[in-house]
């Protein structure tokens, strides 16, 4: 698999505390890479630097071979990196197409002059997008507050897919979902891989991690201690690395 993003020697400190230290990692095109580690291992800090939410103190990032500076979420989005926030970033009072297209609305001209939202097109494209990923929602015109956690999750993912992202960062994507809804989100993630979208997942659920991942990256105390092919490792080895590190 080709490389999409390469980070080298990424370091970030908060005051005297090194949140991440000398992280070097490659994310390949169309792979699912899981990032595991205890609380405080540095996972969130690392993904924040990739999502443009904060700049590293040192190190550098390359996307498709080009050195980049991800100084804002907008910049990260420009390079095809989308982030699925834990709160999902949806607006409860808006309906599905409004949420999916918010910030990049489709418009048409009325009387050849006045720009107006093209709801019909936004609904059709939302429906197509959802169909493409086998997502079924009863009514697109419902406010999203009336939808289940899994449905909300899929809408948030759909919004990222609409942006034609090349890498989706997901922080605990199955948290607070039931078994059935969780499995739908898992299917959606696998579908993204088949569309050559790379996925970086932070998860504490090793069952999901093993079910989905091509590779698993283990972090401890701000350092990336090992990256393993999921096929060539075991749950016991990962737990051991998370708990005791390389020692």
């Amino acid at each position, binding site marked *: 698999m080709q490389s999409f993003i390469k980070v080298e020697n990424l370091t970030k400190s908060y005051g005297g505390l090194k949140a991440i230290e000398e992280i070097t990692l490659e994310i390949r095109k169309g792979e699912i890479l899981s990032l595991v580690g205890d609380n405080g291992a540095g996972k969130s800090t690392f993904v924040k630097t990739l999502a443009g939410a904060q700049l590293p103190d040192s190190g550098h990032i390359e996307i498709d071979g080009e050195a980049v500076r991800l100084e804002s*979420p907008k910049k990260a989005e420009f390079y095809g990196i989308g982030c699925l926030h834990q709160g999902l970033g*949806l607006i409860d009072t*808006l*309906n599905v197409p*409004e949420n999916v297209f918010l910030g990049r609305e489709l418009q048409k001209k009325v009387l050849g002059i006045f720009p107006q*939202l093209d709801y019909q097109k936004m609904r059709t494209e939302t429906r197509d997008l959802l169909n493409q990923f086998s997502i079924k929602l009863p009514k697109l015109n419902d406010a999203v*507050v009336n939808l*289940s956690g899994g449905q909300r999750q899929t809408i948030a993912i759909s919004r990222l897919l609409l942006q034609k992202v090349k890498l989706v960062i997901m922080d605990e994507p199955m948290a*607070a979902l039931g078994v059935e809804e969780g499995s739908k989100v898992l299917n959606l993630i696998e579908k993204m891989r088949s569309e050559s979208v790379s996925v970086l997942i932070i998860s504490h659920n090793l069952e999901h991690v093993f079910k989905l991942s091509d590779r698993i990256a283990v972090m401890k105390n701000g350092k990336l201690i090992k990256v393993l092919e999921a096929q060539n490792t075991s749950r016991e080895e990962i737990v051991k690395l998370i708990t005791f590190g390389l020692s």
Partner: protein
Amino acid sequence: MSDSLIGNADRKWLFQGLGLTIVVIILAILFSLINPKFATITNLLNVLTQASYYIILAVGMTFVIAAAGIDLSVGSLLALITVVSFELIKNGLDPILGVLLMFLMGGTLGAFTGYLISYINIPPFIATLGIMVSLRGLALVHSAGKMHYGLPESLTWIGQGDIIGIPVPVLISLIFTLFGAWLFNKTKFGLHARSVGGNREAARLAGVNVNLVEILVYSFMGLSVALGGLIMITRIDSTQATIGTSMEIHVIAAVIIGGTSLFGGKGTVYGTLMGAILLSMMTNALVIAGVDYFWQLFIMGIIVLIAVTINNIRDKRFLFNSKP
């Protein structure tokens, strides 16, 4: 009302808009039975004419409240821009320029309010309370308590004329309501205003320029005040620094009765129209019944409290129904 006009945002609230329409019709029948004077065409047109400037301001306020804001300064803004323009027109300024000046002042002062709220982070209630007092003070300083009257006929036609028997203020307010409904439901501006009210941070993360949206929302409110003020002063052919006192209560009440959530994020311009008509109808019925003005104020206050309570109950139910 056609589906295209109500739009996607209002579809969910259609029933409420229709429900309010039924309430308005039932009350109109009830008032007519109690006092036949109420049911005359002349009186009903009078109710709509009286409602016209409240409707216009309430349409602007729908955007403000849907964006999770509030504007207490509308009455004072109306006073300031009307006394300044009126005096300039009386002193020889071209009436068209005078009217344009009203809109310029309304839009600019509204944008300034939006700036204080979005960039300086002053809570809307406090920012507009401060502006309300300041602008009223400026209006009093400017006019020194004088009453201004005697506009040119070309302007008084706006407030007093009619087209095929329908008062011009009624026509203007209805056209403005249609425009407001379109803006609210069908444009990027309306969607962004609702998104800022629904979840400001999520809107920002989605790429909405939330500060600009807030400035534009308050600026639109200022423009609505200018239009409402124009109709008001041309109707009574006079203005003074105390004009529009307590107007904000009436306007906010119309919006809340109409079903716009005080928590922001959702609302309906059609509901606002019905809310404003309902309030004007009740005021008219109380006047016809000979109820004292001070009792009218008391009743108006009680109506506002009831409307807010209903609004809160509905929104809490809304939240209880939500799933994580």
